[in-house]
C-alpha cells in the first residue's frame, strides 16, 4: 500500500455518479453477500486495479453507505455494523501517526490484509465464472447414451497345498491308532504303555510302594524320557485308582506318591475323583 492516500480529498470530490451508485447500492442491500462483498462492489467504483485501491477511500465509502442506510432507516445485519466499526478504527489508524506504545498490527498491515481479501475474493469470482464458462457435461459434451450393464460374475477357485494333502492322508491313515501325541516317539512313554505295564504289575503290590518303582527300565537317565515316564505312569495310576484297582497316598506336598493294590474289603474308600485327562476313559 505504498500509494495509500492520507487525505479526505476523494470524499469531497466524489462525483454525482458515484453518489447515485451508492444510493442504488443501498436499495439493493439484500443483494449483498456480506460486508466483504459490499466492500468489493464499492471498491470497483474506484475504477482502478484492485491492487492499487485506496483502502482509506474504501473505508470512507463504506461508512458513508452505512450512514445513508441509517438515514433511510434500512436495518443492516449485525456483521455490516461490525465491519463499519472496524473500518472506522482502521481509518483513524491510517490517518494518525503510529503510536509506538500501541500493540497489534499497524494500520498499513490491516489495510494490506483487507486489500488481499478483496483481491482474493475477486479472483475467486473470476475463476468461478471461468469454470462455469467451460464446456459442461450434459450441455456441451455428452456421455454414452446406452451404457452397457456390467455383469458381475463370481468365480470360485479352490486351492490346497501339498502339505494339506499329506496331512489329510496322515489324518486318515492314523485315525484308528490311539496315539494322541505326535512327537518323536523314542522319548515318549505313552499312558497306554504305562497302563499296560502297571496292570501286569499291580497284582503283586499288596504293600505301599513308591510310584517311581513302576517306571520302565532304562527311562530314568535322559531328562526328557524320565519326565515322560513319570507323567505317563502317574496318569496311569490315576486311571487305575478311578477304576478302583489301586489306592494312592502322599505324605505332603512334593512328598513321594505311594500306591498299593486295593483290596475288595476296602470298598468304602472312595476312588479318586476324575482327574485324568479325557482321553484316558475306557474305550
Amino acid at each position, binding site marked *: 500500500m505504498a500509494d495509500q492516500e492520507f487525505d479526505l480529498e476523494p470524499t469531497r470530490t466524489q462525483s454525482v455518479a458515484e453518489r447515485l451508485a451508492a444510493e442504488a447500492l443501498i436499495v439493493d442491500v439484500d443483494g449483498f453477500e456480506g460486508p466483504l462483498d459490499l466492500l468489493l462492489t464499492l471498491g470497483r467504483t474506484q475504477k482502478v486495479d484492485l491492487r492499487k485501491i485506496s483502502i482509506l477511500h474504501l473505508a470512507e465509502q463504506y461508512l458513508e453507505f452505512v450512514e445513508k442506510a441509517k438515514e433511510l432507516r434500512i436495518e443492516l445485519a449485525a456483521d455490516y455494523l461490525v465491519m463499519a466499526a472496524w473500518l472506522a478504527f482502521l481509518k483513524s489508524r491510517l490517518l494518525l501517526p503510529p503510536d509506538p506504545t500501541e500493540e497489534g498490527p499497524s494500520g498499513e498491515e490491516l489495510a494490506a490484509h483487507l486489500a488481499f481479501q478483496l483481491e482474493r475474493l475477486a479472483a475467486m469470482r473470476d475463476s468461478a465464472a471461468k469454470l462455469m464458462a467451460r464446456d459442461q457435461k450434459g450441455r456441451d459434451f*455428452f*456421455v*454414452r*447414451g*446406452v451404457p*452397457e*450393464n*456390467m*455383469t*458381475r*460374475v*463370481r*468365480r*470360485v*477357485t*479352490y*486351492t*490346497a*497345498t*501339498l*502339505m*494339506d*494333502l*499329506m*496331512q*489329510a*492322508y*496322515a*489324518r*486318515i*491313515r*492314523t*485315525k*484308528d491308532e*490311539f*496315539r*494322541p*501325541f*505326535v*512327537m518323536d516317539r523314542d522319548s515318549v512313554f505313552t499312558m497306554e504303555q504305562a497302563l499296560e505295564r502297571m496292570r501286569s504289575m499291580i497284582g503283586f503290590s499288596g504293600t505301599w510302594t513308591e510310584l517311581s518303582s513302576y517306571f520302565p527300565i532304562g527311562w530314568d537317565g535322559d531328562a526328557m524320557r524320565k519326565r515322560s515316564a513319570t507323567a505317563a505312569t502317574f496318569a496311569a495310576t490315576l486311571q487305575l485308582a478311578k477304576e478302583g484297582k489301586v489306592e494312592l497316598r502322599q505324605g505332603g506336598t512334593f512328598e513321594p506318591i505311594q500306591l498299593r493294590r486295593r483290596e475288595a474289603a476296602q470298598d468304602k474308600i472312595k476312588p479318586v475323583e476324575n482327574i485324568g485327562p479325557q482321553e484316558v476313559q475306557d474305550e
Partner: protein
Amino acid sequence: MSDEQMQEALGLPPQEESLFEAPPMAEQERMVEAILFASAEPVSVKELEARLPHGSVVSQALVNLQRRYEGRGVQVTRVGEAWAIRTAPDLGFLMQKETVETRKLSRAAIETLAIVAYHQPVTRAEIEEIRGVSVSRGTVDQLLELEWIRFGRRRMTPGRPVTFVVTQEFLDHFGLENARDLPGLKELRAAGLLDNRPRPGNMPGVTNEDEEEVIEDEDQGDMFEE
C-alpha cells in the same frame, strides 16, 4: 484422404454445387458419430437427417463411419431402420466383471484327493473304506471339475467299478513329478506331519461332519455310468 478427395471418390458433387451449404463429409461423419454415441436408442436415418445440417448425405456418412469402425472394438450396426454403435461381438466377454474368490478345499475333498493320490487307481468303495465315511457326489465332482482327478480303467472285479486316478494337472499343482513321489507314512511321521490329535467332538471312529452326505448319496447310483 482430404474431404474433397473423399467426396470425389464417393462420386459426390463438389461442395460448391450443393444447393445448401452442407458441412464437408468428414464433418458429417463426426456428427453422425457423436449422435449415435450419445443416443439412448438406435437412431433412424430420418432422425439423423433431421438433426444434421441441411444438405447432409446421412446414408453416405453412415457407410463411411461403418467402414471406419471395421475391425475396431465397437461397430456401427444397423438395427432395423435405425443405426447404433455396439460392442464388437468378440469382445462381449470384457463386459463381465469377474471376481475370483479363492477358497480352501474342504476337508472331505482334500481327504478324498489324498486317497486317490496314494492309492490310485482306486474305486469309490475303496475310498469310502479308507475314509470310513461315504463320499458325496459333490466332493468327487469338485475334484473332477478341478481336473485333479479323472476316471481310470474299470476294475476287473464284479460290477466292474470305475477307478479314479490323479491327473497331470494335479501333479503340476502340487509340484510333483509322479504320484509315487508322495512321501510314505513313515516319512510323514518322521517329518512330524502326523499331528492327528483328535479334535473335540471329532473322535476317531466317529462318522465325520457331513452326515447329509449319506442321504445325498442314495440317489446317485448313476454316477459311474459313463
